[in-house]
């Protein structure tokens, strides 16, 4: 049996492209941080690690739901699949809410993009990632709707897998962002 790649070749082009762009951003962040470690640590102290951890757990859980959901689609289970995608979507909504809460807290402290290079990076990376979360949420909403009927065509299955892979990428990128912004000491 040939080794099987989930999704389609096209989605991997997109995912590797995205990861390359983010890798460049992460490297530039570390470079900027290297020049002003004390300032970046002072900025980091303003962030709530609790919210960061909660968001990481939310995305990991949603990834689990989505992986299970894709499995159910492959088994032709049109009852559990949409529920699992909806559960993943609920986690994504939780992530967005917590992110909004964190932004609101920082704004209340008078911190904005221009306060310090650390916050420039913080807002840029998290907002960019949030954009990916929103696009991924649209994909999950679409999956919730279309998997109510059994998907029979192989291309539909490949598309479902591709959307799932995109969501896992969103999760993976967040884990790196979380480590870089909230944890590095």
């Amino acid at each position, binding site marked *: 049996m040939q080794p099987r790649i989930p999704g389609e070749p096209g989605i991997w082009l997109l995912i590797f492209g995205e990861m390359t762009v983010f890798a460049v*951003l992460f490297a530039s962040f570390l470079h900027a941080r290297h020049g002003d470690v004390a300032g970046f640590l002072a900025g980091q102290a303003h962030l709530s690690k609790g919210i960061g951890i909660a968001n990481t757990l939310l995305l990991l859980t949603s990834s689990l739901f989505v992986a299970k959901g894709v499995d159910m689609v492959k088994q032709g289970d049109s009852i559990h699949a949409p529920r699992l995608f909806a559960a993943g979507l609920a986690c994504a909504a939780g992530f967005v809410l917590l992110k909004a809460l964190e932004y609101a807290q920082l704004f209340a402290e008078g911190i904005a993009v221009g306060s310090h290079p650390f916050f420039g990076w913080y807002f*840029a990376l998290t907002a*960019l990632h949030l*954009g990916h979360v929103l696009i991924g949420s649209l994909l999950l909403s679409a999956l919730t709707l279309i998997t109510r009927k059994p998907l029979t065509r192989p291309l539909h299955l490949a598309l479902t897998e591709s959307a799932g892979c995109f969501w896992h990428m969103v999760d993976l990128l967040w884990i790196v962002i979380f480590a870089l912004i909230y944890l590095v000491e």
Partner: protein
Amino acid sequence: MHQGPNASVGGQRFMIWLAIAGAALFAFAYIAMIRFFPPPPADLPADQVALLYSAHNVRFRIGVILGLISGGFLVPISIVISVQMARLEKGVPIWAILQGVTGAIGSIFIWLPVLVWGVAAFSPDRPPELTLIFHEFSWLFYITTLALFPMQLLGIIYLCFSKDEPDNVSAFPRWLGYLTAWQLVQSFGGPMAVLFKTGLFSWNGLLPFWIPFSLFFAWFAAICWTLLRALRCQKAAGA
């Protein structure tokens, strides 16, 4: 299938080559005459910004004229894309209409900044601060295309994944769907230029400029190629 509008293959080919010629002339005007490639740093002080427009003023203004002649190149290609989309849609081709309308209006992001560069260069001896306003307006206009391009791309992505015709003769193969989707995802980096004057997120940085511009030209080349290929097949099939 294939019962949509039956536009002439020759007319569509002409429009594609019109777009390619326009894009080539625009690239020449932008890179060689206006010389805003790579873009000037977003944190340049007013007197240096004014110098961008007053040095080589005549060459710059001729570049503006050429840029205005060619800057509408997105319109004919959008029309051909719409005609090809409408072939695949059933009933009123709403995705094709959305794509064509947003493409036509979206071309304003390409030629209007050039016109404003012309305004900035028109009076080289005005106070630099006034030129700075035109400069910042035109650059942010040029970079933050988010209002229309994602909607233009949406219908193309949808058709790439939902069409019934085989990939090797289609104007909308699946790989183009993924390329277009990546372009859509990356278009979110553009508006960040409003918040940053230096670094990767400023208007001369990686996210607002280099990635969207590279992807746009890769996408433009790709869709011109798939359109011409599809037209060849449609002509052979007598469609």
